Every structure is written in structure tokens, then in C-alpha cells.
């Protein structure tokens, strides 16, 4: 095993806990725990939001998807970044001015409906769990890939560290932890990629799509975890049994494996055309509009001092996140050249972790850079999991323990532990769930529930509580049902697979339509103080009204 990895991981955990403990010295009141007393500067806040947002799906998943499917999946990073533009244009400043702590708080401020508040709580908990489970799973998978240890240990270890950190330091501490982790994640991808590109240059710039299909860069032994049929470009087929090994010489063509779905040649290099048009637009809609509905992203906006700084923070986040997303694509493309065996084993998510040693060799440089990316991956799981846990704990604290008045720090710690138990148990028992697909589905649920609520709530005076409840139940409920069918149900094929596997293209318009129609039918229920609410949401704070 790589001797640099364990010291690297220990260092990341120690720095995380250290900054958390340092933050604890400032965490005095419940308000410090929940929103850092709203005294975090825009640049710190933006780095923290980015650090929180760049999860296992961004750090490992995108490169793996690019390696496997090529140009069509570039919409994932573009959408993940563009979501912040939608958030900036429609939500950032008014949401901060509403003065709400959490999404259920926003429902209360805008529509004064306890029923809507309870419904929002259900969706916050559902989205957070949906997003938290794959983070812990990703941690388990990385642990297995790097150390060869058991999956459960990795998932539980990261779960426990994150729970302790949130329960002890709260938001104030994790603001600094998250900001540190953004820069760590960026460094962990940017530094190795420089050496990787130099290596690629000195190897004579091998093509990512050689005419004969991807070929092995070095002699490689592949172990098959399940029985499969290998097909070579000339049509010869070989049966491989479970657990069987085969060694391929350098320069040999990578055979097509029946158990792994991937794109080759022109399918990988060129956009998919009209066959994938529905799925592409559904993905665009989910990621562009889903970001504003993610509870762990929104909770960060309350730490801005005013609406104008919330806008500036969002712009910096957009730039930081965009800078980061330039890198995973390069890993995916270089992985096509240096780690094509992943196309045979199907474990493409490991490309970021394996690429430095595969391209630069097992010397000190390759191993050191391998440890650096692994440390970055650990930071990715920990920061996103911390953010999700803080927001779900905040909601459990105020809405389920009903501690909003006179709630103590001890209650918040209890809420954190309560909120951590379910996803940790799930991540151990549902180990086979598909990681990257679940993250996309979390975006679809957020886009079809909270996005219409926020956009209409902020810009349309006519929204009523009945309309909002109906819209969330119809759109969000349909998206939730699609998620449950995709994750728990039987595998689908044909058009139901597209419509249910990528539901956003129909659930988002459905949610908007039902919300508008429901509100128009119940016009009398428009809150009487709507004028005052709109003034508060949109008037600049400098007026001091």
C-alpha cells in the first residue's frame, strides 16, 4: 500500500478537528451554532459554501462519468455550477433579507402556514438523507479502494468524525473547516493534474480516442468481480468467470465487457444526438434549478450580513465552483489513456484516486500525489456530510424537538446525533445503491419542491399556502416517488426508464403549474401582510426602514 496515504488522511482529520476545536472557543450561544451569529465575511463564506457543495459526486463522480460516457455527461459539472447562477438571479438577496434560518422558516415568514412548514420539514429531511447516504457510501468505497479494508469501517468512521465535529463546534466551527476544505480539494486536484499533463506531453501526447479503441498504457492484470463476456474489436469473444484474472500486455486493445455499460469511439467523443435529448434536458433542468432547493446550501445564506453581500458571496461561489469543475474533466480524459482497465471492472469512480500512480509510476512522486488526491476525497465526503448534517440538525432542532424558543446548545447536540443515526445506518445496510444517480435524483427532488416555492414565493404576490402545499405535493411527491422506484424498484427499460430515471423535465413544470393554479383558485388566502413581506424581501437594508 502507498505509505503516504495514512499520514495524509490522519493530517486531514487532525486539521479538521483542530479547526473545529479552535472554532469551539468562539461558539458561545445557540445562534453561533446555527448561523455563526451572521458574522462571516463574503470571501470566507463563499469558500465555505463551495467547500460544502463539492461533494463525492463532484470530486470522484464526474471524472468517473467522463471516463465512462464522454462528452454527454459534461452537463453534470456545467449544471452543478449553473445552479448557483439561478440561485443568484432569483433567490440569494431576497432570501437573506427574509431573515429565515431554514427552509421551513421561510415558509413561515412568507405564508404563515404550519401545515406548509411541516411539509417543508419532511422534504428537507428526505433530501438531506438522500444526499448524506451516498457521501458516506463514497467514503466507504474510497476506504475499500485505498486500504483494502471493509466498506462499513470507512462509512462509519467518516460518519462519526462528522457527527462529533458538528455536535461540538456547530456552524461557526465548520465555516472555517469548510473554507479550508475547499482549498484542500482544489489543490488536491490541481497540483497532480499539472504533473499528469506534463507526463502526457513527455509520452508523446497519446490520443484519448485511438482509432482501434482504448488501449492499455502498461501491462495490466484485471480481476473480474462478476462473470462477464469480453468482446474484442475483431469480434472474438471470451467468457470470464467470477474472480478470474487476465493479464493484458501494453498496447493491447481494451475489450468490451458485457457487465459494464460504457461508450466507445464516436459515442464517447461526440454528443449523443436526439436519442438522449430528453435525458439531457431533464438533467439540465434538475441541476440548474435544484441547487437553490438544497437545504445545506441555503442554510449558508443566513450567515451573510445583508442581501447585497449574499449576492456577492454567490458570485464568488460561482467563480470558485467553476474553477474547480475545470479539473475533473481532465482526469476523466487522461483516465481513458492511463487507467482503461476501469472500463472493464466498472469501478470508474476510482479514476481520480488511481490515476496519479498509474500515469506517473509507483515512485515517490506518483505515490505522494496519489495520497494528496485521497486526502482531497476525504475532505469532499467530510465537508458535504458536515453541511448536510448541520442543516438537517437545525431543522430537527427547531421543528421536531420544538426548541425554537430557549433551545439550548445541548438540544442542538441531541438533534445532531438524532439526525446522524438514520443515514449512517442506511449507508451500511444499503451498500449497493448507485452513488452518482442518487445525487442527481436529490437535485431533481429539490428542483421540483423548493425551487417553485422559493421563486414564486419571492416574486409573485399571489402565492397562497394552499397552492404551495398542492404544488409541493404534486411535483415534489412525483419526484420523490420516482426516486423511490429508481432506488428500490425493479430495473426499468424503454421510455419509463427515461421518464422515471430523470424525472425533472416533467416534475418541475408540474410543480410550477399546480402551485400557480392552486393559488389562483384560493385567491382569498393571500396573506394580508403581503405588502410588508415583499418590502422586507426586496428593499435594500441601507434604507433602514
Amino acid at each position, binding site marked *: 500500500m502507498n505509505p503516504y496515504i495514512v499520514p495524509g488522511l490522519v493530517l486531514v482529520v487532525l486539521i479538521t478537528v483542530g479547526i473545529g476545536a479552535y472554532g469551539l472557543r468562539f461558539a458561545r450561544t445557540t445562534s453561533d451554532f446555527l448561523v455563526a451569529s451572521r458574522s462571516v465575511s463574503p470571501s470566507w463564506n463563499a469558500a465555505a459554501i463551495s467547500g460544502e457543495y463539492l461533494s463525492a459526486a463532484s470530486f470522484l463522480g464526474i471524472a468517473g462519468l467522463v471516463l465512462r460516457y464522454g*462528452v454527454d455527461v*459534461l*452537463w453534470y*459539472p*456545467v449544471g452543478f*455550477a*449553473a445552479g*448557483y*447562477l*439561478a440561485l*443568484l*438571479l*432569483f433567490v440569494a*438577496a431576497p432570501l437573506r433579507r427574509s431573515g429565515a434560518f431554514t427552509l421551513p422558516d421561510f415558509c413561515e415568514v412568507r405564508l404563515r402556514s404550519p401545515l406548509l412548514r411541516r411539509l417543508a420539514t419532511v422534504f428537507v429531511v428526505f433530501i438531506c438523507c438522500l444526499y448524506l447516504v451516498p457521501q458516506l457510501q463514497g467514503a466507504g468505497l474510497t476506504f475499500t479502494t485505498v486500504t483494502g479494508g471493509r466498506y462499513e469501517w470507512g462509512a462509519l468512521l467518516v460518519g462519526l468524525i462528522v457527527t462529533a465535529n458538528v455536535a461540538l463546534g456547530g456552524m461557526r466551527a465548520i465555516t472555517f473547516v469548510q473554507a479550508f476544505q475547499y482549498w484542500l480539494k482544489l489543490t488536491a486536484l490541481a497540483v497532480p493534474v499539472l504533473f499528469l499533463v506534463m507526463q502526457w506531453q513527455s509520452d508523446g501526447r497519446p490520443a484519448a480516442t485511438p482509432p482501434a479503441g482504448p488501449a492499455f498504457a502498461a501491462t495490466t492484470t484485471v480481476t473480474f468481480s462478476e462473470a462477464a463476456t469480453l468482446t474484442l474489436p475483431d469480434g472474438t469473444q471470451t467468457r470470464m468467470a467470477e474472480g478470474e484474472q487476465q493479464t493484458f500486455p501494453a498496447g493491447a486493445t481494451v475489450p468490451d465487457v458485457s457487465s459494464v455499460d460504457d461508450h466507445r469511439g464516436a459515442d464517447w*467523443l*461526440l*454528443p449523443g*444526438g*436526439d436519442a438522449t*435529448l430528453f435525458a*439531457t*434536458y431533464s438533467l*439540465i433542468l434538475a441541476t440548474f434549478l435544484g441547487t437553490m432547493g438544497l437545504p445545506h446550501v441555503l442554510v449558508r445564506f443566513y450567515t451573510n450580513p445583508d442581501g*447585497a453581500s449574499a*449576492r*456577492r458571496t*454567490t*458570485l464568488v461561489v*460561482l*467563480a470558485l465552483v*467553476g*474553477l474547480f*469543475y*475545470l479539473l475533473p*474533466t481532465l482526469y476523466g480524459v487522461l483516465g481513458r489513456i492511463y487507467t482503461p482497465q476501469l472500463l472493464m471492472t466498472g469501478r470508474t469512480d476510482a479514476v481520480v484516486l488511481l490515476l496519479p500512480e498509474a500515469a506517473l509510476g509507483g515512485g515517490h512522486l506518483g505515490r505522494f500525489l496519489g495520497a494528496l488526491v485521497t486526502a482531497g476525497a476525504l475532505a469532499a465526503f467530510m465537508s458535504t456530510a458536515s453541511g448536510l448534517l448541520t442543516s438537517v440538525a437545525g431543522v430537527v432542532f427547531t421543528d421536531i424537538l420544538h426548541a425554537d*424558543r*430557549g433551545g439550548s446548545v445541548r438540544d442542538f447536540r441531541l438533534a445532531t446525533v438524532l439526525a446522524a443515526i438514520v443515514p449512517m445506518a442506511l449507508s451500511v445496510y444499503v451498500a449497493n445503491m448507485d452513488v452518482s444517480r442518487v445525487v442527481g435524483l436529490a437535485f431533481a427532488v429539490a428542483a421540483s419542491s423548493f425551487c417553485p416555492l422559493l421563486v414564486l414565493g419571492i*416574486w409573485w404576490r399571489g402565492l397562497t399556502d394552499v397552492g404551495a402545499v398542492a404544488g409541493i405535493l404534486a411535483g415534489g411527491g412525483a419526484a420523490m416517488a420516482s426516486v423511490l422506484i429508481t432506488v428500490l424498484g425493479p430495473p426499468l427499460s424503454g421510455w419509463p426508464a427515461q421518464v422515471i430515471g430523470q424525472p425533472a423535465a416533467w416534475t418541475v413544470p408540474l410543480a410550477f403549474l399546480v402551485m400557480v393554479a392552486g393559488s389562483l383558485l384560493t385567491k382569498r388566502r393571500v396573506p394580508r401582510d403581503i*405588502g*410588508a413581506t*415583499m*418590502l422586507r424581501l*426586496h*428593499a*435594500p437594508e*441601507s*434604507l*433602514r*426602514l
Partner: protein
Amino acid sequence: MDGDATQDAKVRRTRVVLGEAAARRPATDPARADLAEQTPVGEALVKGLMRAQLALALRLSLVVVAGLGALPLLFAVAPGVGRAKLLGVNLPWLLLGLLSFPFLVGVGWAYVHWAERNEQDFTAVINRPEG
């Protein structure tokens, strides 16, 4: 019962600070009073600000829909665009993997700039000395 009453009294106890009380002095100029008291004039002022901000946001999202959202359709309708190469790299890879991010940041920067200008205009109307 008595215990509850004293607890309620404890919860309700507030600290009075002279500076805060002074800051709560009634608004003196008419536009400010219109806003604070929700008169039709104040309502119209807020509606105007909201309309300006929403129009700005919608216009810029139209730019993004035209610039990015139309790409999958373009690649499907004109496959030749996908095969075109620039500096040895296929155009879709350059557009999505590299250029889309500065484009998004540019649109975001423009929004922040104009949204702040809208707010300054609004503040100027409210604070304008009545002639």
C-alpha cells in the same frame, strides 16, 4: 400556575437601550413614510423595484438559455458542429468543459452589477429631498 406566570414574565423581560429607541424614531420624509405605512404610493414603489429586478433576472436567464440551453438541440440538429475541431479538440468539449464556466461567471457579474444599480436608484428615489 404561579410558576408559569413568573416564567412568562422572565421570557418577556427585554433590555431597553437608549440608542435603539432613538433609532426607532418615526420616519420624517414622506417617501419613507409611504413605504413604512404601506400606502398605495409605497406599494407602487416596491412593485417597481421588484419588476425591475425580475426583468433583469429573466433577461439574463434568457441569455443563458440561448447560450447554453440551446446547445443539446444544436448538437442534435447539426451533428457537424459536434465534429468541428478547434486547436485539436472537438468543439463540444471546449464549449462545455472550458468556456461555459467563464460565461456563467460573466452573466453573474453583470447581474450583481445591475441589481445593485437598481437598488441604488430605488434608494435615491426614497431619499430624494422633496422640492
